[in-house]
C-alpha cells in the first residue's frame, strides 16, 4: 500500500468539490481531488441551469466549452397553462439581451463539459486530480490530521491529510463515515426524470410548470438545450403520488396543455436523480472533516437548484480551510465550525428561510389552494423585484 501526504483531500469532483479544491490551491494548499467516475458529470443527473451571476461570482469564466444555451428569463405556468412571463430582455434591457453590450441572465450548461472545465481549472491551479478513484473511508487522528483511504484503478492507497472534504453529492457516504446525521426524509426528496428531446420548440427561457396534476410535490420543466433540442422533466415527492416520476413525465407529455407541442418529441437522452427539497444539514463538520454541496444539502429548497449554491459554498470552504491551515490551526470540529458559520451568513440563513416558505406551501392540504400558492411563489421568486434574495 502506498502512502501520500496532502493538506486537503477532496472526495468528489462535482461543482462543489472542484471549486473547493481550486480556491484552496489558489491560497497555497496542497490538494488532492478524487472522483470515482471515468468521465465527470456522466451519467448526467442535472438539467444544468445556472445564473450568470452564479458563475462570475466565483470567478468561473463564461466559456462556450460548457455552454449549451444562453437564458434570458422565465415562463412560470400554472396547472391550466396560464403563464407569467418574466423576460429580462424586456424587464431590464439595459443589462440583459443578445446585443454586444448586453449579457444573458444565465445558461444551460452541459454537466459533462462543465464538471470537466471546473476540474481543469482546479488542476491548473495546482490541484492533483485522480479519476477512477473511490473514497473508501477516513480515520480522524485529531490535531494530527486524518487518514483517508481510497482505491485507484484497484489499488488501495492511504493518504495523510489535515482535512477531508466530502463533496460526494447527494448519495454522500463521507458524512456517514463520520457518523453524521445526514438522513433525508422521503417527503423531502424529489424523484426526478428528464428527457433530452428533439422536435420540441423552446424559447431561450426556463419554463417552470407548477400544479399537483403534473408534478405532485415538485414542478415540471421545459428548458432549451441548444442545437434546437429541449429538456422536458419533472420531480415528484413519492409520498404525494401513487406513480413514479417516469409515469408523470409521460402523463405531462401526453395530457397537459403542451400535448400538441410535445406530440412529435423524439427522446435523445434519459436522465434522472434525486433533488432534496429539504433544509441544509444542521451540522456540516466533524473532526478533520467538512461537507460541501449536495453532500451538505446545499440546495435551494424552492427551485431545487444546487449548482450556484455548490460553487458558492466551494469558494467559502476552500478559502476558509486555507486560512485555517496556513495559520497552523488544528482542524478539529470546534474550529471547522467556523466554515459553517461563514456559510450560514453568506447563504445558509436564506436557505432556511426558503425552506420555511416551501414547507408552508406543501403543508396546505387543499390542492387548488396549494397550486395557487406554489404558482404565486415561483412567479414571485424569479421576478426582478422579488422579495427573496436569490441564491
Amino acid at each position: 500500500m502506498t502512502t501520500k501526504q496532502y493538506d486537503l483531500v477532496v472526495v468528489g469532483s462535482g461543482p462543489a468539490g472542484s471549486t473547493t479544491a481550486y480556491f484552496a490551491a489558489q491560497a497555497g494548499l496542497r490538494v488532492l481531488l478524487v472522483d470515482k467516475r471515468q468521465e465527470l458529470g456522466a451519467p448526467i443527473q442535472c438539467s444544468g441551469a445556472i445564473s450568470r451571476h452564479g458563475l462570475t461570482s466565483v470567478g468561473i469564466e463564461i466559456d462556450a466549452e460548457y455552454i449549451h444555451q444562453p437564458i434570458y428569463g422565465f415562463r412560470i405556468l400554472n396547472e391550466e397553462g396560464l403563464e407569467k412571463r418574466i423576460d429580462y430582455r424586456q424587464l431590464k434591457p439595459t443589462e440583459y439581451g443578445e446585443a454586444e453590450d448586453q449579457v444573458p441572465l444565465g445558461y444551460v450548461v452541459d454537466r459533462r463539459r462543465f464538471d470537466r472545465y471546473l476540474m481543469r481549472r482546479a488542476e491548473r491551479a495546482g490541484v492533483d486530480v485522480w479519476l477512477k478513484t473511490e473514497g473508501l473511508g477516513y480515520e480522524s487522528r485529531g490535531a494530527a490530521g486524518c487518514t483517508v483511504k481510497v482505491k485507484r484503478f484497484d489499488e488501495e492507497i492511504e493518504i495523510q491529510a489535515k482535512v477531508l472534504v466530502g463533496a460526494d453529492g447527494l448519495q454522500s457516504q463521507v458524512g456517514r463515515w463520520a457518523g453524521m446525521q445526514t438522513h433525508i426524509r422521503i417527503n423531502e426528496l424529489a424523484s426526478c426524470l428528464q428527457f433530452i428531446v428533439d422536435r420540441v420548440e423552446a424559447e431561450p427561457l426556463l419554463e417552470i410548470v407548477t400544479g399537483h396534476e403534473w408534478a405532485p410535490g415538485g414542478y415540471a420543466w421545459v428548458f432549451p438545450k441548444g442545437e434546437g433540442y429541449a429538456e422536458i422533466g419533472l420531480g415528484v415527492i413519492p409520498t404525494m403520488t401513487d406513480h413514479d416520476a417516469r409515469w408523470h413525465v409521460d402523463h405531462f407529455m401526453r395530457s397537459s396543455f403542451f400535448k400538441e407541442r410535445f406530440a412529435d418529441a423524439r427522446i435523445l437522452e434519459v436522465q434522472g436523480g434525486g433533488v432534496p427539497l429539504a433544509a441544509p444539514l444542521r451540522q456540516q463538520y466533524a473532526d478533520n472533516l467538512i461537507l460541501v454541496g449536495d453532500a451538505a444539502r446545499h440546495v435551494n429548497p424552492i427551485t431545487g437548484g444546487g449548482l450556484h449554491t455548490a460553487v458558492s459554498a466551494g469558494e467559502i470552504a476552500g478559502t476558509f480551510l486555507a486560512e485555517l491551515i496556513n495559520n497552523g490551526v488544528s482542524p478539529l470540529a470546534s474550529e471547522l465550525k467556523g466554515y459553517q458559520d461563514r456559510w450560514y451568513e453568506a447563504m445558509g440563513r436564506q436557505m432556511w428561510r426558503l425552506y420555511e416558505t416551501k414547507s408552508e406551501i406543501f403543508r396546505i392540504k387543499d390542492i387548488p389552494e396549494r397550486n395557487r400558492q406554489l404558482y404565486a411563489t415561483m412567479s414571485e421568486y424569479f421576478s426582478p423585484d422579488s422579495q427573496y434574495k436569490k441564491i
Partner: protein
Amino acid sequence: MSNKIPVLFSIGWNACINCGACVAICPQEAGFISPFDTIAVDRPCDIACLLCEDICPVSTITHQQISLSGQGTEITTPGTPS
C-alpha cells in the same frame, strides 16, 4: 414503515439510470451500495423500510423477504414491488 423481516433487493439493470436516488434515501450506514451508484443487492437489508423502491424514478427496485434460518440465508416469500 419497517417490516423488520430482512429483504434482499433486486434491481432491473435494464431500466436503472444509475441516478443514485435510492442511495440518497437509504438510512443504512455507509457502504450499503453497489458499484453502479445504487443500493447494495448482494446482501440483505435488515431495515427493510423500502423507501428506495418509492424514490426510484423508474420503479425498478424489487425485493424478496428472507429468513435467517439454520444454515445461512433462505428466501421465503417472493416480494412484490410496491
